[in-house]
């Protein structure tokens, strides 16, 4: 197909690009100790939490922003970002959906996430976060019966301080990296999950993040603890309005899989990617990491289609013997999007096993990089890793890069790495079209086929969603 036809195909609208008018209490832009004190006070946090934040802030001030990624952007002025925005209607926490601002409900309806429990996907509980605040968590009581705690992190700080004190920052320390430190200082809300010993969480848990307010950063914090022998599957989704300026999103996600536990964490990220000329879009700087204890398993699956910039490396520290880490990723970039994403698998325990399957799809003038680290420590006997990185190029103005790092300090390790780069070929397109399939459908079919190994890891409802999302993102594409 010609470049012009391809461009036409790739240009399409961002369906979640609308914004909602709600009365909000929004802090003026700027970051200081006062802002953090204000934020903490607003949330009526205990003193120890404020101290934790302030300590993070001090660490952050001394850190340089990372420059090693294959990303290009103007320096971010952290004083032009507002660190707190909350719909006024949430001032008195709604006890039931009837008390939630109809404007907010309408927003989620429009995004295809109805909050009325009877309308929801059966078996999926949702926490929705709007700018800095959690709006509502569904099915809370039903989960409570199973002993599962699923609430906003603000509530968890109030109601489960012992768990927060023990685990917050235990996987991603306050000073881990520049953006994690910033998040630790100013995180607004996010989700908290605790699955008790031996419990298989009776439903899928999911959090839906929405940035609405202009000039507002979103700094969510998610903490999931799966106690011994428990099992949980969690999904996050993200969208933001279409705005001309870049907005900052710096999240931290920590997973703790205690012995014998299993956590499956899936992400469908569709933040506003900016327009064809690279105007606007979310800057997405995210730290996601899990610790896997003996015989436990952590599995990350991500479908990244949005954001102007994606900087994200969901990782697993395989601390316990026989623990398993998995990373399945589809990253699609188009227009002027830049993605530098991948994973780290740190093998510490014996007989630990990790699998990395990464599928990068680049279109337009975008740049798509895989960056991955596999480290085998000296005492990780019989560790195994398998890595496969495939890149698919649509057209000839985009770029795909692979930066694999392998450090093995134990001779018994088995490490495999496979990488391919291919193009959607004219021959493939012609075969489809000769069979009567129109070019848009053909591209989406070929791209979906390319991603199949990853999509099959998503919970079923979301695999369909992810497929559709790719279709929408590629709407108008190749000839």
């Amino acid at each position: 197909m010609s470049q012009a036809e391809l461009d036409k195909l790739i240009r399409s609208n961002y369906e979640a690009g609308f914004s909602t008018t709600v009365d909000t209490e929004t802090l003026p832009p700027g970051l200081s100790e006062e802002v953090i004190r204000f934020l903490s006070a607003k949330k009526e946090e205990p003193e120890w939490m404020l101290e934790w934040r302030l300590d993070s802030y001090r660490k952050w001030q001394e850190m340089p922003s990372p420059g090693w990624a294959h990303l290009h952007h103007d320096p971010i002025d952290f004083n032009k970002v507002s660190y707190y925005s909350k719909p006024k209607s949430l001032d008195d926490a709604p006890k039931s959906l009837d008390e939630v601002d109809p404007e907010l409900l309408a927003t989620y309806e429009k995004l295809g996430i109805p909050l009325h429990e009877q309308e929801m996907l059966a078996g999926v509980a949702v926490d929705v976060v709007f700018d800095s605040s959690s709006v509502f968590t569904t099915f809370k009581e039903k989960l409570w019966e199973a002993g599962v705690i699923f609430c906003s992190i603000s509530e968890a700080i109030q109601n489960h301080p012992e768990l927060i004190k023990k685990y917050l920052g235990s996987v991603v320390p306050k000073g881990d990296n520049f953006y994690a430190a910033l998040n630790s200082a100013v995180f607004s809300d996010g989700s908290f999950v605790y699955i008790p010993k031996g419990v298989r969480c009776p439903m899928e848990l999911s959090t839906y993040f929405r940035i609405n307010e202009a000039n507002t950063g979103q700094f969510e914090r998610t903490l999931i603890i799966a106690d011994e022998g428990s099992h949980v599957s969690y999904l996050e989704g993200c969208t933001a309005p279409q705005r001309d300026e870049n907005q900052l999103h710096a999240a931290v996600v920590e997973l703790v899989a205690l012995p014998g536990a299993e956590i499956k964490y899936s992400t469908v990220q569709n933040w506003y990617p900016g327009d064809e000329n690279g105007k606007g879009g979310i800057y997405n700087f995210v730290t996601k990491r899990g610790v896997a204890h003996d015989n436990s398993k952590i599995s990350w699956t991500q479908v990244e289609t949005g954001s102007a910039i994606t900087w994200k490396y969901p990782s697993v520290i395989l601390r316990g013997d026989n623990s398993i880490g998995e990373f399945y990723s589809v990253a699609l970039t188009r227009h002027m999007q830049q993605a530098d994403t991948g994973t780290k698998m740190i093998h510490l325990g014996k007989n630990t096993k990790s699998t990395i399957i990464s599928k990068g799809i680049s279109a337009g003038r975008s740049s798509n990089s895989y960056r991955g680290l596999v480290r085998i420590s000296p005492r990780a006997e019989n560790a195994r890793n398998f890595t496969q990185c495939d890149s698919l190029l649509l057209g000839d103005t985009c770029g795909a890069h692979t930066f694999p790092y392998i450090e093995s300090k134990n001779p018994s390790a088995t490490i495999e790495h496979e990488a391919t780069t291919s193009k959607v070929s004219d021959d493939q397109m012609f075969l489809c079209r000769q069979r009567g399939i129109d070019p848009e459908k053909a591209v989406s079919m070929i791209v979906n086929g390319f991603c199949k190994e990853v999509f099959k890891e998503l919970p079923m409802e979301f695999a369909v969603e992810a497929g559709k999302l790719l279709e929408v993102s590629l709407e108008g594409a190749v000839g």
Partner: protein
Amino acid sequence: MLEIRDLHATVADKPILKGLNLTIKPGEVHAIMGPNGSGKSTLANVLAGRDNYAITGGEALFEGKSLAELEPEERAQAGLFLAFQYPVEIPGVSNMEFLKAALESVRTAQGKEEWDSVTLLRQARAACKQVNLDASFLKRGVNEGFSGGEKKRNEIMQMLLMEPKLALLDETDSGLDIDALQTVAKGVNSLRSPERGIVLVTHYQRLLDYIVPDFVHVLSNGQIIKSGGKELALELEKKGYGWLTGEEESA
């Protein structure tokens, strides 16, 4: 159903077809033969609308409509099918998924009744059986890891399901052993009908032992230089192409 008049065509701007005339009526089977580089495959690809294959003069009318004005998928929807010389792999897209998309589009365009998934699966299994492909091939990626012969049989399987009005087979016999050749021929013969036109593009006569054509045309340097009945193919087999093209040619 197909009317080609003084057709000129280029491949990546290089003139290949130079004034080709050919008429195909429903029910007829035509064989297009000729030495390498004579333009046989070009003709098939021009008719199907491959990128970089451009009509620069004359016309090709399919049921009265100019093919030049139709996109490749529109030609397929109108009932034109090309069995590829080198079927390409589409990893991760299952044969079944691919067939579903193709048949949905083509059957809808032709006003045929839509097949539900049970019917589709039953039809697809039957088509596989006809070309001696195990039904497990339906679950595999399109041509993914297929042998040369399996790819060719997969093309014929698709053709059986698509029920085209005009089938173009581009060197479907190349790379087939004798058993596979017979299987493929049986599949093609089963499609012979008074409403359907079939064009066999081939270098060798042996395919025509199994699919007996009504007409044989010899293509050389972008033009048809001789036409005849099935006996012409036998003559070519004996004498090669040299006596027609005036060049030494080892067929």
